[in-house]
């Protein structure tokens, strides 16, 4: 501290030891200046920039030569975005103390970088333009300008405040709140910022304003408030949740809701899916069944066809094999002819083979024309001898009352020689004596017809009358 009169260094006395002038009051003024400077420094260190400005300006009012206060004031202005004000203070500071003054560095920092200086100038111009728009009621344009300003200089507190004011005017409370929070981060105790914040928070949470007396304590003591993006989260602490019954009740309700959702939404869909699956499987099985049924039908038809073919082939085979007697008859005739050719006198063998040609009633034997011709020709040769052969055997059997043996031989005898009336007569008598009166009558009638006027005919008439009388 130096004397204002002579420039001597002052001692602890209240007078100047150089010139003797009273410096008591002067010292107090200097002390006050320093005190305000210290206060400003404390406030600046906690970012109470507005408060720091007030204190530092007060300090400079007491002592304009307080270089530290002036430099600090310039710094505070610069931090708040008031670059020109900061430059003014630093320039004044430099003029008051040209040497060993940190203000030189501050001024050089700004002025040497011309682009930065231009940017700062443009920022200020845009801010002033935005303010003009506000006066002209062109608030949209003002908002646009202010956003540009803040993009260049994010720490410009006045721009933030003006933008917040515009948002408040159009009731964009969230945006206004955001801008004011940025302000408060730069300058914590700015009165304007705090006033706007109060208004905005009141609009964002109106019920708290109405119940201020009751809720104020709650907000002050029992809540945790923090910012999460664009939202303000207010979380009550020390809030005792009712446990026990409430938890069980909530659990029960949740369970019921879950079951209801599953029953009405999930289960029908699953049932539908299951049904669809079953239907598709059923469809597949039905298709397979139909295919197999078709295959079975086809195979049955094949079986039937093959069976018919087999039967036809069997018939053909049988016809070739002679089960109906045709082949057997052909063999018999061949053998008979063969025997005759070998030994014409062996009539017994010939007769035996010829018996194979005989067919029973009901047999449907097919004989070829060649066979018929051969048989006819052969019988022409052997019929008389065969007739005699069979008549001899038949008559001998008749005479010995062996009617069972007599009948077939006498039949054969008459067949091979239909002029042999005796064979026919004895045949009728054989039938009569064996009790076959119907056959006897038939034979007798034939004798009467074929051999009329003979003794055989007369005897046949007699026997026929007897038979009729018996019936």
């Amino acid at each position, binding site marked *: 501290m130096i004397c204002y009169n002579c420039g001597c260094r002052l001692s602890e006395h209240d007078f100047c030891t150089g010139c003797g002038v009273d410096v008591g009051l002067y010292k107090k003024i200097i002390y006050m200046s320093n005190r305000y400077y210290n206060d400003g420094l404390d406030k600046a260190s906690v970012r109470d920039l507005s408060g720091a400005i007030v204190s530092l300006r007060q300090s400079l009012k007491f002592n*304009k030569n307080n270089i530290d206060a002036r430099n600090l004031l310039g710094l505070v202005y610069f931090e708040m975005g008031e670059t020109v004000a900061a430059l003014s203070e630093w320039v004044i500071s430099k003029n008051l103390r040209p040497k060993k003054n940190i203000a030189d560095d501050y001024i050089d920092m700004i002025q040497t970088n011309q682009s930065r200086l231009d940017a700062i100038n443009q920022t*200020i111009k845009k801010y002033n333009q935005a303010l003009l728009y506000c006066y002209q009621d062109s608030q949209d344009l003002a908002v646009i300008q202010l956003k540009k300003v803040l993009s260049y200089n994010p720490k410009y507190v006045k721009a933030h405040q003006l933008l917040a004011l515009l948002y408040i005017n159009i009731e964009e409370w969230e945006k206004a709140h955001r801008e004011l929070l940025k302000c408060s981060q730069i300058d914590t105790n700015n009165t*304007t910022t705090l006033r706007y914040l109060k208004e905005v928070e009141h609009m964002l949470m109106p019920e708290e304003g109405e119940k201020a007396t009751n809720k104020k304590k709650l907000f002050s003591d029992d809540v945790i408030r923090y910012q999460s993006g664009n939202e303000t989260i207010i979380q009550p602490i020390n809030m005792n949740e009712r446990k026990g019954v409430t938890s069980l009740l909530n659990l029960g309700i949740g369970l019921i809701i879950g079951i209801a959702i599953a029953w009405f939404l999930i289960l029908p869909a699953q049932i539908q899916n299951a049904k669809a699956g079953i239907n598709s499987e059923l469809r597949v099985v039905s298709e397979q069944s139909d295919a197999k049924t078709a295959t079975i039908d086809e195979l049955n038809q094949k079986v039937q066809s093959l069976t018919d073919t087999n039967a036809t082939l069997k018939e053909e085979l049988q016809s070739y094999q002679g089960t109906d007697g045709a082949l057997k008859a052909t063999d018999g005739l061949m053998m008979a002819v063969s025997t005759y050719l070998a030994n014409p006198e062996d009539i017994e063998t010939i007769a035996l083979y010829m018996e194979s040609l005989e067919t029973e009633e009901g047999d449907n034997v097919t004989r070829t024309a060649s066979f018929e011709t051969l048989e006819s020709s052969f019988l022409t040769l052997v019929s008389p001898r065969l007739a005699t052969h069979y008549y001899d055997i038949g008559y001998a059997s008749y005479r010995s009352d062996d009617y069972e043996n007599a009948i077939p031989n006498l039949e054969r005898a008459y067949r091979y020689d239909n002029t042999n009336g005796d064979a026919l007569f004895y045949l009728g008598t054989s039938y009569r004596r064996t009790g076959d009166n119907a056959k006897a009558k038939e034979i007798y009638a034939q004798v009467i017809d074929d051999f009329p006027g003979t003794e055989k005919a007369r005897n046949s008439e007699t026997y026929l009358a007897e038979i009729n009388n018996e019936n």
Partner: protein
Amino acid sequence: MIDFEEELKKFHPSLEVEDAEEAIYNEDLTDMADILIKMVAKAKPEEE
């Protein structure tokens, strides 16, 4: 409730770089010490 017009009146245009020189020149740097010195200087002739 904030009155937009009233609040707007509190906002003043900022000094541009071109205006800095004039602002510095117009700055009144009189402080308490200067006032005290003037007062002392004024009182001295009266005593004499």
